C-alpha cells in the first residue's frame, strides 16, 4: 500500500524494535514528527537542545546495549548533533542519527536551514547516507541499524530530504538477509583465527607475570563471565580502562582497577612489570599508554579486538586476534582447558600475585580525609555506600569523572557511563537521562562537575517534563578543576580562566525547573542529602556539594610520560617512592 516516506521511516524504526527516540523537531523533519504523532507507538523525548538528544541516545545505548536513536531537523539542528555524533564515534556507541534535509531540488542551493551534514559528519560516523529516492528509504534505514550495532559498533547518520518524507511509495521493508546482501564489502569478522588462539593459549600458560588489560570492547560484547573464568583459572590480575569499567567486577581479589594516566599505582606497576599483556577489546589509547616506548616494556602482547584497524595501531603486538571478544575468549578458554589448563611456572605466578598484593597494600587508592571540608572523593564513596554499589553512574568530563572512576566500585558492565574518547563536557546529565529511561529498574546517578553541568543543564527541564528521577550530584569546586590541576602542576599555578565561582544557585535553579535541590557544605551533610535524594522517585534531584576547591586527582601520569613518572597521592613520584623495578 502506498504510504508517505515519513510513515515508512516510522514503520522501519518499529521493525528495528525502536521504543524511544530522543529529538527536537523543525521544518525539514516535520513530516516524520507528524507520522510519529499519528502512529503513537514510539515514545519521543523532547530534549531542549539537539546535543542533549544525541547524548541521551548515547546514554540509552550505553546502558542497554540497544541501538539509540536521535532525530533533528536540518541545518542548525543537524550541526547541534555533531558533538554527540563525534562522541559516539570515539566510544563506539551504536546510535542512528536521523536528520531532516531541505527538499531534493533545493540541495546545494544554500536554502534556508541547509547544511551538508553528510559531508560534515563523514569523518565522525561509521557510515552515513543521504536518501535520494524514496524506494531506497527502508533499505538505507535498515542498513543504518545493521551497521551501527554489528562489528565495532558506532554512529550512523541518515539524512532525509523533506520531499522524500512527503512522497508516496509502496516499497516494502527489506529482510535482514536482503540488508546483508546489499552490503557486499561489510563482513564483520567474529570468530578469531584458531592458530592465533592456540598461540595465545600457550603464551598465557607459559607466562610468569601476565596481566589482562580490558577495555570497552569487553563491555560491548558482555564478556564478563568469560573474563572472570579466564582470570580465575589462570590466576591473572585484571586492569580495566575507563571504558572497560564493570567488564570485570572491581571487588574481585584479582581486580587491579583502572590503569594509565589516573590509574592505580598497582595497576600501572603490574603493567610496567608484566611479561605478558593480554589486551581485550582495548585500543592502547594515549591516556592508557603514556609514552608508548615505555609501555609494558618487557611484555609480549596478545590483542583481541573486533576491529582489525585497532590492532598494531599504536603498539605492535605479538599475537593479534580479530574477532568478537566474547567468542574469542570462549575459544581461548576451550583451548586452555584442552591443554589441561597447565601453568608452566606456578610458583612464579604465585610470587607475581603476592608482589601485586604488596603494591596494593603499599599504595592503595586513597585520599586525605577531612572533618571540616567536603572532599570530592568522600561524596563519591558515600554515593557508593548509599546505593550499595548497584547504581548506574553517568558523568561529565573532568576531575569528578576520574574520581567517579576511582572511588565507586563497578561490578557489572554498562554501569559506568562517561565520555571516554572525545572527553565531552556536558555529557553526564543528558546521558544519565537516556540511561535512566533505558534502565528504569536501576538508580541512575549523574556525578557532574559544575563546569560540565553548566554546558547542558537545560536538559534538567527535560528530566522534569518526563519525570525521570535521575540524581544529579554536582561536585562543585567553582573551578574548571582538571584544567586548574594541570595549571597547578605544569604551569606554576597560573590559573588562566578557570574560575567558575560566579555560578547560578543550583538549588534555586533546580526548584525553578520543578526539580528538587539540596546543598551540602559540611561533610556531615553529605550522606543525609544522598539518602533524602534516594527517596524522591517522581522527578530529578540536584545535589550541590561544595567541595575542597583545590583537591587533585592522584595518582597521575603526566601526559606523554612514562609510568615511572607517576605522581602519587603524597605528591611523590613513583620512581622516588619505590624503585620502579623491572621484575625479572
Amino acid at each position, binding site marked *: 500500500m502506498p504510504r508517505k516516506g515519513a510513515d515508512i521511516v516510522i514503520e522501519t524504526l518499529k521493525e528495528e524494535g525502536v521504543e524511544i527516540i530522543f529529538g527536537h523537531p523543525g521544518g525539514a523533519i516535520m513530516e516524520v514528527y507528524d507520522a510519529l504523532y499519528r502512529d503513537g507507538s514510539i515514545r519521543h523525548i523532547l530534549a531542549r537542545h539537539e546535543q542533549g538528544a544525541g547524548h541521551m541516545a548515547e546514554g540509552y545505548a550505553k546502558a542497554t546495549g540497544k541501538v539509540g536513536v536521535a532525530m533533528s531537523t536540518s541545518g542548525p539542528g543537524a550541526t547541534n548533533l555533531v558533538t554527540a555524533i563525534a562522541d559516539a564515534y570515539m566510544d563506539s556507541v551504536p546510535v542512528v542519527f536521523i536528520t531532516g534535509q531541505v527538499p531534493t531540488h533545493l540541495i546545494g542551493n544554500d536554502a534556508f536551514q541547509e547544511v551538508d551534514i553528510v559531508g560534515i559528519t563523514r569523518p565522525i560516523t561509521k557510515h552515513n547516507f543521504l536518501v535520494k529516492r524514496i524506494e531506497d528509504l527502508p533499505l538505507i534505514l535498515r542498513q543504518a541499524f545493521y551497521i551501527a550495532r554489528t562489528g565495532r559498533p558506532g554512529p550512523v547518520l541518515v539524512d532525509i530530504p523533506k520531499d522524500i518524507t512527503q512522497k508516496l511509495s509502496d516499497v516494502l521493508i527489506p529482510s535482514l538477509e536482503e540488508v546483508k546482501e546489499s552490503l557486499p564489502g561489510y563482513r564483520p569478522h567474529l570468530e578469531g583465527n584458531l592458530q592465533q588462539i592456540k598461540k595465545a593459549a600457550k603464551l598465557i600458560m607459559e607466562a610468569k607475570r601476565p596481566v589482562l588489560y580490558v577495555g570497552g570492547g569487553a563491555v560491548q560484547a558482555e564478556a564478563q563471565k568469560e573474563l572472570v573464568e579466564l582470570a580465575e583459572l589462570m590466576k591473572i590480575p585484571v586492569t580495566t580502562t575507563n571504558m572497560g569499567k564493570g567488564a570485570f567486577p572491581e571487588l574481585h581479589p584479582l581486580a587491579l582497577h583502572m590503569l594509565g594516566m589516573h590509574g592505580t599505582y598497582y595497576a600501572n606497576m603490574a603493567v610496567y612489570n608484566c611479561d605478558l599483556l593480554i589486551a581485550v577489546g582495548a585500543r592502547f589509547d594515549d591516556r592508557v599508554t603514556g609514552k608508548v616506548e615505555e609501555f609494558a616494556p618487557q611484555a609480549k602482547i596478545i590483542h583481541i579486538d573486533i576491529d582489525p584497524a585497532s590492532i598494531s595501531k599504536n603498539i605492535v603486538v605479538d599475537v593479534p586476534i580479530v574477532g568478537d571478544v566474547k567468542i574469542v575468549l570462549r575459544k581461548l578458554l576451550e583451548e586452555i582447558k584442552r591443554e589441561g589448563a597447565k601453568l608452566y611456572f606456578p610458583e612464579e605466578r604465585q610470587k607475581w600475585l603476592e608482589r601485586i598484593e604488596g603494591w596494593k597494600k603499599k599504595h592503595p587508592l586513597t585520599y586525605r580525609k577531612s572533618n571540616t571540608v567536603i572532599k570530592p572523593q568522600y561524596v563519591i564513596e558515600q554515593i557508593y555506600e548509599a546505593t550499595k554499589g548497584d547504581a548506574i553512574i553517568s558523568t561529565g568530563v573532568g576531575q569528578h569523572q576520574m574520581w567517579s572512576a576511582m572511588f565507586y566500585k563497578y561490578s557489572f558492565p554498562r554501569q559506568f557511563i562517561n565520555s571516554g574518547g572525545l572527553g565531552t563536557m556536558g555529557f553526564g546529565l543528558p546521558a544519565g537521562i537516556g540511561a535512566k529511561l533505558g534502565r528504569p529498574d536501576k538508580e541512575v546517578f549523574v556525578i557532574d562537575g559544575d563546569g560540565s553541568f553548566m554546558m547542558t543543564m537545560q536538559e534538567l527541564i527535560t528530566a522534569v517534563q518526563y519525570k525521570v528521577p535521575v540524581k544529579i550530584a554536582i561536585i562543585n569546586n567553582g573551578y574548571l578543576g582538571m584544567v586548574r590541576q594541570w595549571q597547578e602542576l605544569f604551569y606554576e599555578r597560573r590559573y588562566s580562566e578557570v574560575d567558575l565561582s560566579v555560578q547560578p544557585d543550583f538549588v534555586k535553579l533546580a526548584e525553578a525547573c520543578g526539580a528538587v535541590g539540596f546543598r551540602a557544605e559540611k561533610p556531615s551533610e553529605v550522606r543525609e542529602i544522598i539518602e533524602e535524594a534516594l527517596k524522591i522517585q517522581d522527578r530529578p534531584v540536584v545535589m550541590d556539594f561544595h567541595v575542597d576547591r583545590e583537591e587533585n586527582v592522584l595518582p597521575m601520569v603526566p601526559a606523554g610520560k612514562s609510568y615511572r613518572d607517576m605522581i602519587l597521592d603524597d605528591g611523590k613520584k613513583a*620512581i622516588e617512592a619505590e624503585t620502579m623495578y623491572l621484575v625479572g
Partner: protein
Amino acid sequence: MADTIGSAGLNAVKTPLFREVRKGEVRKHIITLTVRNELGVLARIATLIAGKGYNIEGLSVGETHEKGISRMTLEVIGDDVVIDQVVKQLRKLIDTIKVKDLTDTPHVERELALIKVHTATPRARDEVLRLVEIFRCRIVDVSPETYTVEITGTEDKVNAFIELVKPFGIKEMARTGKVAMKRESIPQEEE
C-alpha cells in the same frame, strides 16, 4: 636507565629496555580499491586519507565490468606503518569491497597524458613526429602551430617524453593518475 634494571641478565643479552616505536620507510605507495559506486564514496576515501595528514599524489577512478562497482588507484607518499593503518581503515569503509597495497607486489602501472606541443617550424614538426614514433605514442590532433600527443605508459616513460618535448614548448598538458593491476605472470621486461 641501567640503574633501575636490577637484573644483569637483561643487559647482557642487549634486549632493548623499552618497546621501540614502530617506524617504516617513507615511500610512494600504490593502493588499489574496488568500491561500490555510491554517492560520496570518493569524498569518503579522500577525507580518510587527508584526515591522517597525507596528501594524495594521484587518483584515478572508473567503472569496472561489473555494474555499480568502480575501481580506484591511489598514490600516497607515506610511512609504511601508517600506510598499513590507512589500508586497514580503508577496508573498514562500508563502500569498499577490496583494498590492496600493490607497492611490494609485481604489478602493471599505466598512465595517460595528453600533451599539446608547439610545432610551428617544419623542424619542430619533424622532431616531435620522430619522438612520437620512438615512444610509440599517437598524435590525436593537429593544427598549423601544434601537435597534440597521446601517450600511455609508466610514469617514467611519460616523464621522459615530457622532458624531451619541453624545449619545443608545451602549450597545455593533462595527465591522468595511475591505474594499476596485479600481475598474473612472472614480471617481464616492459615494452
